[in-house]
């Protein structure tokens, strides 16, 4: 591997098949995770990195089985701790391409702290959050992204927890790449996954993922063909926020708040917000645009490749400090600054 932090480019042309392990995929038929797995296997060959340089890391949960199905290096760790392990991997070897795939319970409940700290440090890794708004593996308890009032196995009268907004969370933590996609949207997934993995720094992708057993239809408003055009708006850098089946609706910001307008009904296209993915201040506004009051934003919300990565800086500090003759330095250090010599051997310690 190279010394400069870039995984080297694969000389062999790889295909999606090359990234599929020999393990049978054991998610429930119809699970949204299949779509993300397929998109990942298709996206990686086109990035051109060697497959042995990828490490997929996960915590616990249905989504966390992801590494078993990728024919790369993979670690299925313990509940909530995938990002702590992943951070250690990057500190140890910054050249590896590390992708963390886990669920909303794993990354935003038991592991929320590690998610926050990895983002604020800007460790060079990718986080794919498969958000199904439920605990699936433990059979249907509410998760930190479940909506208020949700009736689940542990909240028979309705959940009293207000949900966390993953994108707001990432923005608050100072994450340098924030994106969102829906499991059924293969082109959308493909784009954000590729950009996320190529991003230098912590990249975060929230995927709206359907759990067809315990929370079927949680994202139907955004995923179904008949409603999708009205309930989501695809972000493209430099382009106005336009949506709707007839592309006749748009978003403008007034006093920092989003407003829905009909393009023909008064507002001209130039008044609409033009997406600027380098503008961090918008992420919070974007994150507050939620169904049913607003269409929800999809695509790359924010990308800042400028901030240096934690692992590169750790590596740099050490490389700058390292002495050439380690052996001599170690001998000097062992002796210390105040040593003394004992010459005769009499009655030594027995």
């Amino acid at each position, binding site marked *: 591997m190279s010394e400069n932090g870039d995984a080297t480019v694969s000389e062999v042309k790889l295909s999606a098949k090359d990234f599929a392990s020999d393990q049978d995929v054991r998610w429930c038929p119809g699970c949204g995770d299949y779509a993300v797995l397929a998109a990942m296997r298709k996206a990686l060959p086109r990035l051109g990195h060697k497959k042995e340089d990828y490490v997929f890391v996960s915590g616990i949960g249905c989504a966390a089985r992801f590494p078993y199905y990728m024919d790369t290096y993979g670690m299925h*760790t313990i509940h909530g*701790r995938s990002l702590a392990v992943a951070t250690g991997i*990057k500190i140890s070897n910054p050249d590896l391409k590390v992708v963390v795939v886990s669920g909303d319970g794993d990354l935003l409940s038991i592991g929320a702290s590690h998610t926050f700290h990895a983002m604020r440090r800007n460790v060079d890794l990718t986080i794919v959050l498969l958000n199904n708004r439920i605990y699936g593996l433990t059979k249907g308890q509410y998760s930190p992204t479940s909506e208020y009032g949700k009736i689940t196995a542990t909240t028979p009268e309705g959940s009293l927890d207000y949900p966390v907004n993953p994108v707001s969370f990432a923005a608050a933590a100072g994450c340098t790449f924030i994106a969102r996609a829906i499991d059924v949207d293969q082109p959308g997934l493909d784009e954000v996954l590729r950009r996320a993995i190529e991003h230098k720094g912590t990249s975060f992708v929230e995927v709206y993922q359907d759990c067809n057993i315990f929370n079927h239809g949680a994202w139907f408003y955004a995923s179904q063909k008949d409603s999708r055009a009205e309930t989501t708006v695809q972000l493209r850098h430099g382009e106005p926020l336009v949506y709707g089946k007839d592309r006749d609706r748009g978003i403008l910001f007034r006093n920092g708040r989003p407003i829905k307008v009909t393009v023909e009904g008064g507002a001209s296209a130039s008044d609409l917000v033009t997406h600027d993915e380098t503008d961090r201040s918008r992420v919070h506004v974007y994150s507050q645009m939620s169904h049913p009051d607003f269409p929800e934003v999809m695509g790359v919300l924010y990308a800042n490749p400028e901030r240096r990565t934690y692992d590169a800086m750790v590596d740099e500090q050490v490389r700058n400090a*390292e002495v050439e003759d380690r052996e001599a330095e170690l001998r000097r250090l062992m002796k210390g600054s105040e040593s003394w010599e004992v010459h005769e051997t009499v009655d030594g310690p*027995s």
Partner: protein
Amino acid sequence: MTTTPVAEHAAHPTTIDSVVIRFCGDSGDGMQLTGSQFTETAAVFGNDFATFPDYPAEIRAPKGTTYGVSGFQVHFSSRDIHTHGDDVNVLVAMNPAGFRTNIRDVHPGGIVIVNEDEFTASQLKKCGYPDGYNPLQDDDLLARYEILPIPMSRLTRESLADSEMGAKAIDRCRNMYALGMVYWMYDRPLDPTIAHLNRKFGGAKGKPEIAEINIRALKAGYYFGETAEVFPAKMRVPPAKLEAGTYRRISGSEAMVLGLVTAGHKAGKRIVYASYPITPASNIIQGLANLKRLGAKTFQAEDEIAAVCAAIGASYAGNIGVTGTSGPGLALKAEALGLAVMFELPLVVIDVQRAGPSTGMPTKTEQADLMMAMHGRSGECPCIVLAPRSPGDCFGMAVEAVRLAVRQCCPVIVLSDAYVANGAEPWRVPDLDDVPAIEVRHPSRAEVGEDWLRYTRDASTGAPAWVLPGTPGLEHRIGGLEKGEDGNVSYDPDNHDRMTRLRAEKIAKAAEVIPPLEVRGPESGEVLMLGWGGTYGAITTAADALRARGRSVSSAHLRYLNPMPSNTEAVLRSFDRVVVPEINSGQLRMLIRSRFLIDAAGINIVRGRPLNVDTLIERVTELMDGEGGAA
């Protein structure tokens, strides 16, 4: 070595072989600095020594209170010694609170030097003495000890009267004044401390004026001793007769840091040390953070769990992952340790034990994490467990921890403790060439061959190969779920039974490459005092003393607790009785009894302090004479 000119002209001192001095005062009085300077000087002078810093958890507790008292004990000797000493020969008390909390440890007839300026009505009250009582006028105390009241505050101020420094800065030199007096009493050179003060204040801090007033106070204290004739005869403790070699003073934390970087060097690897601040383990990450020049990477994680997980990730990616903590942190790391056992990756976990449970007494020592290290995880989850027996031994045990972790691909828990970590002793600097290389192999596709599976085991070690991500053609998955030999998930009952056994056998196999248990004294007899960890000094000294009195007592110390050396049972069975002194309620004793069905007796004292030699002698004597002992 140079000596202070005045020392050479001093009257002929009386020669004695051993002295225990304790400095005590407010936690802001600089007692740790004073004690460590005295130690440094004893080291340079060539004495054997052992230290015991004893300080409160509060950084600056309210001035003058008993709970804000900080102490530093130094035992220095012309003989080979192993402990900081039970009884104090000389107590230096900078205030009434220090006097009150420490006086009972002074040997009858011992010298007590007090700063009488601080023994005011309000200070006496603050530390809880009844109204109108002054211990310096207590006839019982005056009869029992040689109490020397010296107006140290006033004398320090007077000696620096012409200084332009403020009153506060001048008052802060009192500790150096006291140190100067003690240096005179024991005929010590001032040069090492003068050099230290010049380095500490004159160098990077750019405050040579602070160095100057401290040095002047130090000298003034020394001259006071020479001229005032208040002290008993000047005493001399000649250099110890130690094995030839280069020596230095070393604390347990320093030795641990040195051992880790040495092991990294010998393995051709970086040390990646991930840790979360916790008393008394923080000195290790702080030490390593300053050793980037030797390739060490440190990571201050967001919590204890992240620290151990990052260390696991670091090992996975090909460096030596190490995490360090104290008891409460080890409890938090338990689940991740299970993961490392399941992954079968090298990992070193240092637990600097402190008095528990819960927050307990964070700055006080204890040995009560042994059972947690052995068994404190879910499932059948064996780890290698080691315990350094003294500050200097931390070096060797750190190297051993890395060697065994790499060889067996498993977690190694190193049980240090607050006494070992903070204490210091003379250490014979080993030749780097005498530290054996640590063999590390990361096989390639061609080396493992076509039939390779992730958990194919080496016949001699029982461990799988340490395969690194980035190796072409060996892509595989590992996880916390039970796995088959190929690393893939398996719920097969027989496989789980087999894997459980293989993981245990692998740990047991480490016994083939660890040194045998050594006996000090005759190899068979009536009583074997068996210990582990930081009680080595006390147990060894007690057993030696009992033998000198004609008792049939030997001692042995386990530095390898899991697996134990293969001769352990044979050693234990060579004695009529095994006595296990521990700073816990009998944890090693429980292991000995359960493993060997040997009816070991315990001496268990859990006071947050090192064991006393006299107490051990007394208890073992009672036991031998049939007067009881905890069974």
